[in-house]
């Protein structure tokens, strides 16, 4: 058994939040750069070049890539041979969020009650925490702060087996088309297919943070990722939604076994401020 101090977890998450908020991943940076060169619309090119300059400034000046620094989504895989000492697990994570959003000059965007008492919690807590117990003696942490311009454009549909590939394609393309300029294109589309309703949505969220330089290990799904990407980019929505050939940078799909009667399909959209950072303790 390995003992890990709560303070170590807090420090790690704190650093990951700041890193995610200031430093865009190299995969996204390179992809936007390539798209800026190929973009057919002159105004689209201007927008994409502004995004590149924006990434550069945020990294250099240590300021937020986007002012919507989001709700803090954290995926934690805890090794079953780990014992955490020195603090409550959930509180430790929220302490890290509190400290990072305050010290890092990040906007606090969380309200206490969704419907009636929409008062800002003033420290961006609570975080959204997804925990899994896995073999080993390490803790794997993925932090992905999520802005709501793109979160609001996400969707889940309980497709049925007869809908087949065509059903998935139509649902994904229609969802992106309806979203138009709202999720701040170019976007990355995370898709979760299978499992149950909640499982599909969690997979979709996780896929918004998978490197866009990777493809699904199953060649059939890798081909579907490619097909969806092409179809979305033919919509002509373009960067910032003003028309152009760069609407989507990548579609990432994750799947899970499902019931004989179902085929849940969830879509989580993330904007070009696709922020995530990862560490292993």
């Amino acid at each position, binding site marked *: 058994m390995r003992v890990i101090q709560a303070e170590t977890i807090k420090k790690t998450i704190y650093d990951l939040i700041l890193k995610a908020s200031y430093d865009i991943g190299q995969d996204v940076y390179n992809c936007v750069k390539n798209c800026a060169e190929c973009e057919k619309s002159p105004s689209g090119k201007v927008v994409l070049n502004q995004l590149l300059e924006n990434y550069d400034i945020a990294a250099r000046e240590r300021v937020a*890539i986007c002012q919507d620094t989001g709700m803090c989504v954290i995926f934690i895989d805890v090794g079953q041979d780990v014992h955490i000492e020195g603090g409550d697990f959930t509180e430790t994570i929220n302490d890290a969020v509190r400290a990072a959003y305050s010290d890092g000059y990040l906007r606090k965007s969380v309200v206490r009650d969704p419907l009636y008492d929409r008062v800002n919690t003033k420290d961006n807590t609570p975080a959204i925490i997804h925990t899994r117990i896995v073999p080993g003696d390490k803790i794997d942490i993925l932090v992905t702060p999520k802005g709501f311009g793109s979160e609001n454009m996400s969707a889940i549909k309980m497709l049925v087996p007869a809908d087949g590939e065509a059903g998935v394609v139509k649902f994904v393309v229609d969802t992106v088309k309806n979203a138009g300029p709202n999720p701040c294109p170019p976007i990355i589309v995370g898709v979760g297919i299978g499992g149950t309703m909640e499982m599909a949505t969690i997979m979709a969220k996780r896929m918004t943070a998978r490197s866009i330089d990777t493809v699904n290990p199953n060649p059939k799904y890798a081909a579907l990722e490619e097909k969806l990407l092409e179809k979305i980019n033919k919509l002509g929505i373009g960067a910032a939604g003003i028309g152009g050939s760069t609407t989507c940078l990548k579609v990432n799909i994750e799947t899970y076994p499902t019931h004989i009667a179902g085929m849940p399909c969830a879509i989580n959209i993330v904007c070009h401020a696709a922020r995530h950072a990862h560490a292993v303790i």
Partner: protein
Amino acid sequence: MENIRVNLPLDKEQLKTLRAGDTVLLSGVMYTSRDAAHKRLVACLEEGRPLPFDIKNQLIYYVGPCPASPGHAVGSAGPTTSYRMDAYTPQLLRAGLLGMMGKGKRNDKVVEAMKEVGAVYFGAVGGAAALISQRILSAEVIAYEDLGAEALHRFVVKDFPALVLIDSEGNNVYVEGPKKYAEPDTEE
């Protein structure tokens, strides 16, 4: 692509020459306001009280910035989605406002009022927030301090990059742009 220089406060004659899709650089003074501040501005107009600033020929930017870190006038300050202000915008336009800046579509009532007074709806690039904040030379709260990030700020900007989303004739880049670049789906 050539950027058109636009000075603030706005000039109606120049606005007539701007076309949806043009890229511009804004310099001068602009005011910020989002949901809650809009509600108060319109209440002023309805009750016949003076507004906290002279709205004639001004531009309002829809933004809720990050806190400023040391050495910066303001934190990251990209646009918020504009449709939430649609309910208030026509009244402000009729009171003298000539420009709005945000992201996303506007409703027909806003576009009608814009055409009536010759106003322009500008777009800042959503998410280009750190870049934008560098073009804001100073930021000062002039009213509604209790609203925090939503307080009414006066920004002095230089070469603030923006696009013309809807021009004074009602041409709309969100409609025209995608039409121009959409490709037929040949597969089915």
